[in-house]
């Protein structure tokens, strides 16, 4: 490898490459903000970032650490509130793409960010939907960040927080959703997409420092590897933009170690 990079950097860039010019991006903090920002700087100049809290297209001079951070209220087009911002997700004239994360994902991209165990007897509590279920229900598409671990990629969710492709096929539209569904899952090992017909997850790209087999091993359900290709490593431009312009303090990127070190989940 000519340039050294971390798994976090690869994830941010891999997700950023999925953004199209003109997309209206519903971002959280963390990697999603890096992905959105790097896409805007490199190839999707007219993409717009907004936050569920009401900050629409902020200048983001400093990286916000929360979607309610005062840093999302500066240089915006409009400072509004939750009602306005969450409504944008569903706006028929916008192509809205939401970045989401979760504790668990199933083969159809449905997400759990609420709890482990059962609703009656929770073993572990997470924060809950926030706006995630809203975004998953109403955006034109979602891009999901996950740590790639068997206990997170599960056949059945402990709690179904946010709708993906439901049970696959046409089930999402039949349930009453007017659009949307997961576009991709970006993990620390690779990029997963959903079959156009069955809507089941398959491996689309594996990072240069992983293998399809390693990914299958870390996935808690059967996953189609037949379409997998190697992901292009970060370009110099991508890495420079990310490191020097977007997160120079590595607040989100974290320590600079090699991808091979940082990318593999600890088990």
């Amino acid at each position: 490898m000519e340039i050294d990079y971390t798994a976090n950097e690869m994830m941010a860039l891999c997700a950023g490459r999925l953004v199209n010019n003109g997309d209206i991006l519903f971002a959280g903090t963390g990697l999603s903000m890096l992905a959105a920002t790097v896409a805007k700087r490199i190839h999707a100049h007219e993409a717009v970032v907004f936050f569920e809290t009401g900050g629409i297209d902020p200048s983001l001079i400093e990286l916000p650490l929360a979607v309610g951070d005062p840093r999302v209220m500066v240089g915006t087009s409009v400072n509004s509130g939750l009602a306005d911002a969450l409504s944008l997700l569903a706006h028929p004239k916008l192509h809205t793409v939401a970045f989401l994360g979760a504790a668990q994902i199933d083969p159809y991209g449905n997400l759990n960010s609420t709890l482990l165990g059962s609703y009656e007897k929770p073993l572990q509590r997470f924060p809950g939907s926030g706006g995630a279920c809203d975004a998953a229900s109403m955006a034109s598409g979602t891009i999901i960040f996950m740590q790639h671990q068997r206990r997170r990629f599960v056949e059945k969710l402990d709690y179904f927080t946010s709708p993906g492709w439901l049970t696959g096929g046409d089930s999402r539209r039949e349930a009453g959703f007017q659009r949307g569904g997961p576009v991709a899952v970006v993990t620390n090992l690779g990029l997963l997409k959903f079959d156009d017909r069955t809507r089941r997850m398959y491996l689309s790209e594996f990072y240069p420092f992983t293998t399809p087999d390693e990914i299958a091993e870390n996935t808690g359900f059967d996953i189609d590897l037949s379409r997998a290709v190697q992901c292009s490593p970060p370009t110099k431009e991508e890495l420079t933009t990310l490191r020097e312009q977007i997160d120079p303090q590595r607040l989100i990127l974290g320590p600079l170690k090699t991808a091979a070190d940082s990318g593999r989940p600890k088990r």
Partner: protein
Amino acid sequence: MNKKFMMAAEAVERFIDDGDQIAIGGFTVTRNPMALIRETLRQRKKELYLVVHSQGQGMELLIGAGCVRRVELAYGGVARFAPTGIRFRKAVKEKQIEVEDYTNLHMTLRFMAGAMSMPFVATRSGLESDIVRLSGFSKESRGKGRVPREKLKVIDHPLDPEQGKVVVLPPLNPDVTLIHAQAVGEDGTVRIQGLTFADVEQAKAARKVIVSCEKIVPTEEIRRDPDRNCLPHFLVDAVVHAPYGAHPTACHMFYDYDPDHLNMFKRIAADDDTFRQYLDEWVYPFETQQAYLDKVGEKQLEKIKADPDLGYAPGLDRR
């Protein structure tokens, strides 16, 4: 002075009763009405029924101190400082509180429905999810006190069956809403700067509204620019002048969140003993906001002070 203006102690004593349904403004690490919440803890209010969208530090204290029995929420976390609220997580696991989950849009729409006297509100968000399928409160509690008869319902679109299923949700009309604003006029008119989150809907939906604020300005001044105001004076029941009243959360244009305090809280929150020590050190002793600020210290307040152009503290060490 307008008779709505009072100390936090009086406002909390007069307007919050044990068992009340309480809405809290702000969002995770911003504009939590902390001065009012600390006073609520100090007065040992009990059995509160919180209704919030995404609540952070304020809910952590209320739940941690044992003031809360029930919560309806979409999100319980303090952003990067505690992606899941530490006391919230613990209270759920130990079944100290009953929880019912919604989404941020659900909660916002429910406050809006309450504010606008809509009989209910409809959305497609959450169809097929466990948020829609599962109820957190017991059957026996349904329809009693403020617990809605139904958490929500999935019905056929009443005007056009071809449009399929929709979720209908009950309005919220909390007993009391607590918010923290940048400015209140001497007449009681409220102005929030920056994002309003759902504070305006929460306040309008409430039977009683307590507003704490950074500053009180003359009526003529706040009415010179009414485009910026968000709550008319007659909807506000009590106004508490509380500079840095959202600390350790942020208040746009006034101060940033306090990363030192929030990191310290994160370290002590998980353990019941150290958490109790925190309350004894940072909450219970202070009858006034000024006494609390003396404890925080001028140096720390200076550190988080907002740049007047940016509205936050640029370069603040937020690790």
